[in-house]
């Protein structure tokens, strides 16, 4: 009874946060049960981990775009850094660490840290810009990361890591093993990413984002977003808060990348191009800026959609585009929005009336 009252006493944001957690956990339990029961199609099973990775990407970008209010067009770059560092790490640890779960954990942590460092370094010049300028510069940084990652050669030789750029000059001994091979990327990756790991990553991302948004930092960031001049005039150090959020966002993208990379047997740098950045941006815009649950649903739906449309064969991608346009138009239609708003208002009014009655 007390717990119930406590739940009622929460404000709307907190209630929505708990709803998000609950839905994610419920989805996980249902899917995991289906997987264990063996009633799941191979096609569905194969998409679970990439969906988790894209959800974390969408949450990460939503922190930048929705909460911070800055448009980033190079988010796939952070995913790329995380994917390559995280996957290279799990490949290096392959012989010395038999536990796949532990290896994956370390890989994800390394991917997140590496992407956070890159995010911090890029944030220093980038976050001094605003609006369109920031969008263009992040776009350029995304391309730079893609080009750099596509030219790295890395190998492990008798316990030493060896690096070279542009050409393969590693001079490996016969026992040495090449891990990253420039444009050909990483190959023969053992698939160690699991749905459970993806679920845990989504939960951690949600906890971090919700806590941050509700904290002093989050309030400061949103104040800067809503009125930069007013926020600065009352002494909020805008740059410091922005770079904090940007680094956290990059770290999440890196973790998503490490999960993604460990799910496929080969990984190439050209996968993380502007198309991927835009795709993630589409998740965020469709799900609603600042709306984490929306991002999760949009990321899952838009990853499944092209596969669900396989029946259309040659017209599949055209259908995908048509549906995307239709959904964007319908979800932004003023009339439909009004209807939804009315329903929501009626429900809250009802709840309020009920709550008031039971409090008496």
């Amino acid at each position, binding site marked *: 009874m007390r717990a119930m009252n406590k739940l009622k006493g929460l404000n709307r944001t907190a209630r929505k946060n708990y709803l998000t957690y609950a839905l994610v956990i419920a989805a996980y339990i249902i899917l995991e049960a289906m997987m264990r029961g063996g009633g799941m*199609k*191979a*096609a*569905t*099973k*194969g*998409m679970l981990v*990439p969906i988790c990775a894209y959800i974390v990407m969408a949450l990460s970008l939503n922190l930048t775009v929705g909460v911070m209010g800055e448009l980033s067009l190079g988010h796939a770059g952070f995913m790329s850094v995380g994917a390559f560092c995280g996957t290279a790490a799990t490949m290096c640890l392959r012989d010395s660490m038999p536990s796949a779960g532990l290896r994956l954990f370390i890989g994800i942590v390394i991917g997140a840290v590496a992407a956070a460092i890159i995010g911090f370094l890029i944030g220093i010049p980038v976050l001094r810009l605003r609006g369109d300028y920031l969008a263009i510069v992040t776009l350029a940084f995304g*391309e730079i990361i*893609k*080009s750099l990652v*596509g*030219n790295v050669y890395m190998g492990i030789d008798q316990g030493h890591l060896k690096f070279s750029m542009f050409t*393969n000059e590693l001079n490996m001994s016969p026992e040495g093993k090449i891990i990253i091979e*420039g*444009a*050909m*990327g990483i*190959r*023969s990756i053992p*698939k160690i990413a699991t749905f459970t790991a993806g679920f845990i990553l989504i939960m951690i991302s949600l906890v971090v984002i919700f806590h941050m948004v509700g904290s002093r930092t989050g309030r400061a960031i949103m104040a800067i977003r809503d009125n930069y001049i007013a926020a600065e005039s009352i002494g909020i150090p805008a740059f410091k808060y922005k770079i904090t959020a940007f680094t956290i966002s990059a770290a999440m993208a890196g973790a998503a990348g490490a999960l993604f990379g460990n799910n*496929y*047997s*080969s990984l*190439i*740098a*050209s*996968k993380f*191009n502007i198309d991927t950045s835009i795709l993630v941006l589409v998740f965020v815009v469709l799900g609603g800026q600042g709306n984490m649950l929306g991002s999760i649903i949009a990321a899952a739906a838009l990853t499944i959609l*092209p*596969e669900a449309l*396989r029946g*259309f*064969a*040659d*017209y*599949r*991608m*055209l*259908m995908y585009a*048509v549906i995307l346009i*239709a959904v964007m*138009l319908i979800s932004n*239609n003023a*009339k439909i929005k009004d209807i939804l708003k009315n329903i929501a208002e009626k429900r809250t009014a009802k709840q309020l009336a009920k709550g008031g009655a039971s409090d008496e």
Partner: protein
Amino acid sequence: MNMKKFFAIFLAAMMIFSLAACSGGSTEPAQPADGGESEGAVTIKIGATGPLTGGAAIYGQAVKNGAEIAVEEVNAMGGIQFEFNMQDDTHDPEKAENAYNALVDWGMDMMMGTVTSAPAEVTSADAYADRYFFLTPSASSTNVIDGKDNVFQMCFTDPNQGTGSATYISEKNLGSKIAIIWKNDDSYSTGIRNTFVEQAAALGLEIVTEETFTEATKTDFSVQISKCQEAGADLVFLPMYYEPASLILNQANAVGYAPTWFGVDGMDGILTMEGFDTSLAEGVIVLTPYSADDSSALNQNFVKKYQDKFGEVPNQFAADGYDCIYAMYKAATEAGIDPASMDHSAICDAMVAKFTSMTFDGLTGASMTWGKDGTVSKLPNAVVIQNGVYVGM
């Protein structure tokens, strides 16, 4: 726009669209020839993935067309019946994995590979883990076959093409000053370039300049072309797909630079590319195991059927697809494959044993054999483009 109007337009668009989709016709997987014949016959489900849409679609479509002709012929013979289902992977490893899983759900018995290299690295690893027999028509990277006993290639490997090209150029004395333009963010291009440079050094060929481009810069080659020209290159090696190659030929023609152009199997397809002036490709040498002007009865039959059905001259990818189906047919017949009594892993083992011991005659080579590592052994051949068609050299 008001809601009614919007929905009216949207629904109309959907209707037109679904009509278009119906008239497409090629979307259905090929069915066994007819009910009477397939009664009691062995039916094998063959899955395939390839780029049917997107930038590399010409390869996927060609393989699909070639394979469909072979499937029709095989089914008409009345022995083993094939059901063929090719899924789109848009040349993306992630989508290829999804396509592969869709085929597993469809209940495929064996796989006629993935058309392009990067996606094939993912699907072949899955097929190896799940024990599906895997024969790729055209994924030439060694990563596809490395360490997988059940994965075979119908095409040459990338290193094979690189060394083959360098050897051919050296033997036929095609050029003394060689330039290379390659795409350094692409595993296919990089793989061939690396082995070409190695072999060229071993044979004492002089490479005067190496120019690179990436996915983002594949539209303007003026800098690379002028550098090749400045370096005095009389032969330019183009280890890339036909799309950027067509632009290079076009832009070099505009500045009046006419060295000998030498391409590999990715160049195949340039003659059927829409909007490309084939006179620009005059004199281009392509290292490919197949040429449509080959006068053998087998090839003439294939070219005629292909032209009747699809209205164009088949390229090497179509021939690879055709050969794959026939090689699988031969192995399946000889090994006595029957999906009714064997699961896919038993089929896989039987096919692997047959593949490493049989000899196969096809469009892309006579007396082909496969090693345990999955590589094919057949003779590389160069063709030169004359009057818009390939002519054997």
